[in-house]
């Protein structure tokens, strides 16, 4: 992050940054859990949490977190206990590692890798291993089903995700997240989503839907389908381990929204150049948050797709469109340079 000559100071600043990010993740998860319950309640014509903590139940999420932490830690006897214990942490690490390259502001980034986009796509696939471990180690046929479905879904949807993310990379000529954000300077019409109109918009839309599949949200939440598989791959998990899965899911939601915000919506750039006095992190978190809200809205409106329909959508609809899009934008970039 900040490279001072003194390695100890560098290390201390890095640790502070890491702690800050993890705290941010925890706070964000608590807040978005509460918000999801409120959003779902209002969509369903009811109120949601109202009691805990007074005003609209704002501490409901904290109360739930405490409840999960004090629960009994149950490990099924016939479960593979080492894998069972390890799985939640791998899933959490997979989602937390993405935060290292998210640019919160001009100077606020964990590590400005010059292959930032590549790193993020690679590291978010780690989650699949954790899910498979969880499903297998639970020794529960339904958990296994959930894990297999989830693995198939995530691996398939990596392809449209990567192809759509390549469009801003093509347009900016760099894989580094900070470079991509800096190339979108100047107001919302300069954001990549509006630049090679309408192709980058299509890319954005495809990325948004494919990222819904990456985080197992409705309409792609067949791996956690409540009404079929009880809870899918984390059926057998309770208490703190379940809390970690939960953290990982919401963290992932933020990461994929943040990637969309960075690559397509201008990251920490303000909407109009005149509003530069409002600090970068506000814009960044605000844009990512708007997308998270969109994800929540979709969850409570749409039914879920079946596994084969999901695969059909990925391979026969998203993939051809994102390929075609990429080629057209590539052509556009070459022609624009001339």
């Amino acid at each position: 992050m900040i490279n001072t000559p003194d390695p100890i100071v560098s290390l201390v600043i890095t640790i502070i940054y890491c702690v800050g990010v993890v705290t941010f993740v925890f706070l964000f998860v608590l807040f978005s859990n509460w918000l999801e319950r409120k959003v779902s309640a209002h969509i369903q014509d009811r109120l949601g949490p109202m009691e805990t903590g007074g005003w609209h139940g704002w501490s409901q999420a904290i109360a739930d977190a405490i409840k999960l932490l004090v629960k009994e830690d149950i490990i099924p006897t016939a479960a593979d206990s080492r894998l069972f214990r390890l799985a939640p942490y791998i899933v959490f690490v997979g989602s937390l590692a993405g935060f290292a390259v998210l640019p919160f502001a001009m100077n606020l980034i964990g590590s400005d890798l010059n292959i930032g986009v590549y790193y993020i796509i690679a590291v978010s696939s780690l989650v699949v291993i954790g899910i498979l471990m969880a499903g297998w180690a639970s020794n529960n046929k339904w958990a296994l089903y959930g894990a297999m479905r989830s693995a198939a879904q995530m691996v398939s949807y990596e392809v449209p995700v990567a192809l759509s993310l390549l469009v801003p990379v093509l347009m900016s000529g760099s894989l580094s997240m900070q470079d991509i954000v800096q190339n979108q300077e100047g107001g919302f019409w300069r954001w990549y989503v509006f630049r090679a109109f309408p192709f980058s918009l299509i890319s954005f839309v495809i990325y948004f839907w494919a990222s819904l599949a990456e985080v197992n949200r409705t309409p792609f939440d067949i791996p956690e389908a409540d009404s079929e598989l009880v809870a899918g791959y984390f059926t057998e998990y309770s208490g703190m381990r379940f809390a970690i899965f939960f953290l990982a899911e919401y963290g992932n939601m933020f990461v994929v929204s943040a990637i969309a915000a960075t690559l397509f919506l201008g990251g920490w750039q303000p909407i109009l150049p005149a509003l530069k006095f409002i600090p970068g992190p506000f814009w960044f978190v605000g844009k990512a948050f708007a997308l998270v809200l969109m994800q929540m809205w979709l969850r409570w409106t749409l039914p879920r797709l079946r596994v084969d329909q999901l695969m059909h959508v990925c391979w026969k609809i998203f993939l051809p469109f994102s390929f075609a899009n990429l080629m057209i934008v590539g052509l556009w970039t070459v022609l624009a340079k001339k």
Partner: protein
Amino acid sequence: MKEIRELNLALGPTAEKWELLRNASDPFGERMTLQMGPQHPATHGVLRLELETDGEAVTRLTPHIGYLHRCFEKVAENVSYPQIVPYADRLDYVAAMNMSLGYVLTVEKLMGIEVNERVKTIRVICAELNRIASHLIALATNALDIGAWTPFLLLFQEREHVLDLLEELSGARLLYNYVCIGGLAFDLPEGWTAKVREFCDYFDPKIPELNDLLSNNKIFIERTGNVGVLPPDIAIAYGVTGPNLRGSGVKWDLRKDEPYSGYEAYDFEVQVGTGEMGQVGDCWDRYMVRVREMEQSVKIIRQALDRLPEGDVKEKIPRSFNKMPVGECYVRTEAPRGEIGFYLVSDGKKTPYRLKARSGCFTAISALPAFAPGCLIADLVAIVASIDIVLGEVDR
């Protein structure tokens, strides 16, 4: 999987078919047996489905019931006829008015009692209100199993209005003990008919809303159209009745074809599945038949309210049930989940000699192994949701 489904339908319901499916080749040993156990969010009660799956496709399905058996028939042999009415309510607890109406009509046929018009009309109103409430549950849980969370809560909200009406009438929200042999327990409270009319006006625009939200939703159609096709000949052979039979295109409704309790005087249409979003007899058809039946129920309620005559609802209730005529009869009525039939044998004493309740869900579950195999597990959930079972009726 298409082969297994075709094999299933082609062989017909014989013992050889079960054997052939069971021994169908599994060279790599990939078949997995799992229990969609008695405790499962999608089985609508305590139903155990033993599945044999090849990957995601279900190759064999064996339902196991009996987890909710509450010895209704044994109890009926030990208590007197009016005491059985609350037990009859608890058969299909979601549509209790229809259950007790069916039982009461059986006893009235045995005793030769003919009730007056007011009683008949009020019974029709209660049965149709309960039909709306029951279909709302069916549709809400159907949506929930497909993954749409919101319609569940919205439809239950509508159901609250119906339950409020019935609570005002009989004192209970779910299990009424209201229809009596020879009449009704209470007359209508003051202002009740106005409230029912208000409810009908309130409910009319809700059905197009539901259609916008769910019925015409592309994802819902993908999940339910062409899934779980129940051919009409298999439906009739296995004794499937009610909306499940009508969803397969058979125009048969006991309210029109064997009218009871004054139904012949009402003008309504029998809703039949037409295969709009797939094939005739798929899950979407069964779902849509229920939606449209709710509209027709509102129509019937309005007509019943218009023609509600004056009278005494308790005038034909027998003084004593100690001496009953000797005989036996079988009476069936159209409950929301199918046909509920009561076979009653009386030997003159004050308790029945034998009372057998034949429910629509019992036969619907028996038909599952005939048309469900060949689908995916996710489809199986959609199919079980669309045939709308309540285990209280199945296990009695």
